[in-house]
């Protein structure tokens, strides 16, 4: 045993529901979270691709920014175009550091009188401290600890939502509104992390289980754990913070340049702006790419990527089995010269080099409305 103090993991408002459903609970980002339910990761993955899945993502940080000029103040920390974000619209962006590295990635929603941020569980304490230390005194940073976050994802998600909240079902992708869902007052976003159409529903902690049970009463919906959440997002080519992106990778290297508007590229005014401007002009030295092993052996995170001469050129940052792809898939960083889809590379799994090809992302076509 290690000498580490046994700090009990935090529980989300849906903890009892997970246990009641027979979930296998594991520690994740300081929380006791369901990695899978009795049917298993493969079935949960297919359920989400074919019908609809309910995910507890209450461990993520929900933060409210309020005050005059909140959008322009936040722009000093992120390269995303927040000033141009219309009320009811959502934008994906990143907190950057002076080197252009990524401190965290986040979703920002303009709710008119405030900005609503959703940040990663593992980064939220640091993000909130960063916001409080960096934003001017007139901007309040409120950590919404008393709210749960439930994702409903899959091709049937909108059909289900239409029964519980016609207003939420009418939302366009990457937009959000305050809606009543099954009688509960919620903040609903049409967004997600699976490559499927879907919603993320922020609800008061004490109403979360009632709402989750109401959604699970719908025949199309089943509970999905973190295991399938990971295989779904990997097939969708979506980055996982701390794995595919971190303080040492820039948004340009990670293929996230689409999230930086023309105005922000020109004007800068965020940490690392000069470095990102140069990368955008000259191309980053390395790029995050999809990797498709030719055999069936999965290449896990940390697997070395080698070129035709056997030289190590990079590492896998996420890798596993893609149930919809029906084979192993991975993502990792390679030098610019090897980043073209179709380029042959090798993946060193347990000392043996396996042939693989650079693949375009996503592995599975996105199905947003």
């Amino acid at each position, binding site marked *: 045993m290690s000498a580490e103090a046994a700090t009990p993991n935090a529980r989300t408002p849906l903890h009892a529901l997970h246990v009641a459903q027979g979930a296998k609970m594991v520690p994740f980002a300081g929380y006791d979270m369901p*990695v*899978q339910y009795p049917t*298993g*990761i*493969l*079935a949960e*993955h297919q359920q989400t691709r074919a019908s609809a899945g309910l995910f507890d993502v209450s461990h993520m940080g929900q933060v409210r920014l309020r005050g005059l000029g909140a959008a322009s103040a936040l722009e000093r920390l992120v390269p995303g175009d927040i000033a141009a974000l219309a009320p009811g619209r959502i934008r994906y962006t990143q907190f950057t550091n002076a080197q252009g590295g990524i401190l965290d990635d986040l979703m920002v929603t303009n709710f008119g009188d405030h900005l609503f941020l959703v940040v990663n569980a593992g980064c939220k304490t640091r993000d909130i401290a960063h916001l409080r230390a960096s934003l001017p005194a007139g901007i309040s940073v409120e950590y919404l600890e008393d709210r749960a976050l439930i994702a409903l994802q899959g091709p049937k998600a909108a059909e289900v939502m239409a029964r519980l909240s016609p207003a939420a079902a009418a939302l366009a992708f990457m937009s959000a509104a305050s809606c009543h869902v099954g009688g509960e007052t919620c903040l609903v976003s049409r967004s997600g992390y699976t490559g499927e159409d879907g919603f993320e529903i922020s609800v008061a902690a004490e109403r979360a289980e009632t709402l989750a049970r109401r959604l699970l009463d719908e025949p199309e919906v089943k509970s999905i754990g973190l*295991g*399938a959440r*990971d*295989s779904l997002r990997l097939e969708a080519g979506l980055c996982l913070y701390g794995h595919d992106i971190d303080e040492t990778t820039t948004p340009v290297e990670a293929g996230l340049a689409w999230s930086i508007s023309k105005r922000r590229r020109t004007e800068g005014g965020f940490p690392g702006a000069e470095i990102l401007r140069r990368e955008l002009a000259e191309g980053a030295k390395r790029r995050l790419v999809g990797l498709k092993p030719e055999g*069936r*052996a*999965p290449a*896990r995170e940390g697997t070395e990527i080698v070129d035709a001469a056997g030289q190590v050129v990079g590492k896998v940052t996420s890798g*596993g*089995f893609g*149930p919809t792809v029906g084979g*192993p898939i991975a993502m990792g960083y390679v030098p610019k010269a090897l980043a073209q889809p179709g380029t042959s590379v090798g993946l060193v799994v*347990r000392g043996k080099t396996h042939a693989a090809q650079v693949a375009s992302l996503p592995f599975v076509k996105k199905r947003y409305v």
Partner: protein
Amino acid sequence: MTKRYSEDHEWISVVGKEATIGISVYAQGQLGDVVFVEVPEIGRKLAKGEAAAVVESVKAASDVYSPASGTVSAVNPALAEDPAKVNADAEGEGWFYKITLSDPKELDGLMDEPAYKTYVEGLA
């Protein structure tokens, strides 16, 4: 036929000096959906406790340790195309490899079925 289990959840079924090895029903349940199995090369000499095979679920890769010493005489060809056999029939069609035992007495240190059942119940 003698069947024994290791504390690492491998099973070994022995007829004479020929032994078939796989992972237990309990182990496959703990791993979840198996998506890849790497079996040892035929002819490889394995020592008891040596990492002999790898079983990968959607989530992670796990080593399979040889419950006895011997030389690999056969591997299950079906697992390459259908690794899910390990979930469907872990102690039958989902076998991993066969060895010719070099020291059959090693089996004495392993658990029989009732002992293994008690062992697994103690893990819950």
